[in-house]
């Protein structure tokens, strides 16, 4: 009997995630060439000019595509996601405090979590804030002639700072999605949309119970009908 699976992300949530993820990785890899001198030297002026064109072209989907996909495709779940990210309880803080041990594969008891655990909420909030910062400073740099020199001068360090911090966050994000034995089942939620029922129960207990309770209600309503 195949393992029971439950849907965690619908098609538009997944498309929104990947349009953001792919454009961000392109922007990061092309942008970091201006931070790491060895990398810039390796590419040479021709490579760097090509990277600039890619970087500037990616600015458009990075800024607009994900927002459009989420708003037009799945506004209800996107709103729920935002609301959940902004709702922090005691269990969330306890989760964050205990999570470093889990990250390094040490034994730890984590408090029960909803559809998004506190780490995912923190990652979401950092991503939203970081992306707004990167898009705002990036567009200032692209349209620099319309801004005062002081604004442009400060956009540069902010753009660099945002890129390097978000780059660090991305490394942890990719590790948890692909490498970490406890959490790497979550990548399936972003590929097929479904995760194993066991993973949902063990990692997102509160969400799993609500899901089951919802199914029960539907079934009973069908019975009554």
């Amino acid at each position, binding site marked *: 009997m195949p393992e029971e699976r439950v849907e965690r992300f619908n098609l538009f949530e997944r498309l929104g995630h990947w349009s953001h993820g792919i454009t961000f990785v392109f922007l990061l890899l092309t942008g970091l060439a201006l931070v790491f001198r060895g990398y810039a030297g390796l590419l040479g002026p021709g490579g760097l000019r090509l990277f600039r064109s890619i970087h500037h072209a990616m600015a458009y989907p990075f800024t607009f595509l994900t927002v459009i996909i989420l708003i037009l495709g799945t506004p209800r779940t996107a709103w729920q996601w935002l609301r959940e990210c902004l709702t922090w309880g005691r269990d969330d803080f306890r989760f964050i405090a205990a999570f470093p041990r889990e990250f390094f594969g040490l034994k730890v008891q984590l408090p029960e979590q909803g559809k998004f655990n506190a780490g995912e909420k923190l990652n979401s909030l950092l991503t939203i804030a970081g992306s707004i910062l990167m898009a705002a400073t990036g567009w200032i740099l692209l349209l620099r002639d319309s801004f005062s*020199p002081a604004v442009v001068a400060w956009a540069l360090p902010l753009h660099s700072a945002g890129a390097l911090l978000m780059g*660090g966050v991305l490394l942890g994000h990719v590790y948890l999605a692909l490498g970490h034995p406890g959490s790497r089942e979550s990548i399936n939620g972003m590929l097929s949309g479904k995760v194993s029922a066991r993973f949902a129960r063990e990692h997102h207990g509160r969400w799993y119970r609500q899901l089951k309770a919802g199914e029960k209600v539907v079934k009973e309503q069908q019975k009554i009908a």
Partner: protein
Amino acid sequence: MAKYGMLIDLTRCIGCHGCTVACQARWDLLPQVQFTKVHRYEVGTFPRVKGGVVTTQCMHCDEPPCARVCPTGATQKRADDIVVVDEQKCIGCRYCQQACPYDARSFNPQGNIVQKCYFCYDFVEKGQQPACVETCMAAARIFGDLDDKGSELSRAIASRKAVQIKGTSIYYVPPRNLDASFLPADFREPGAVRIWQDIVHPGGKTVMGLAAGAVIAGLVINNIKGGGKNA
């Protein structure tokens, strides 16, 4: 090695823009790209009005922030103190333009590069004068070796009580009608450049390095615990 510098005697400058144009002609610049500019000032209220002229250009700073932020090494300070841009290496990121405290750099939209006054280094190497010096009919500009105490430049700086813009290679004799506050300010590295290069870049690289280290440590620990085939 010479240490090149320039004196601009603003008591002689008449603001004819000859320097701007001669430079553009020699370097074949776009009309909107001007390596040396002429600014006019008026002080006082009518009828007691006085005017003056101040020219500006790349100051060939001792510690040029433009060279510091350049990610490709296109902008460099040479051993003879001239700050140059290797236009082949420039990728037009325009970091230097923002870093320059004297607004002395221009973007060339045709070549997608940033340009500025080069002190006519290749002509100077052949023993010639920079175009602005050569053309100045009032002989307001003197170019030469600051290290050579006997050079025309060094002697003029001493005899005309020229003001050095500190941290740069440029000296002015202030115009009679204007005080030294109308001259470019002494060199100071812009705060945004300092924070960017001294804090953001090393700090950000550390954050990325720590994140990478944590991921590797996590992978190693999980692999050891799972015996290579973890759950």
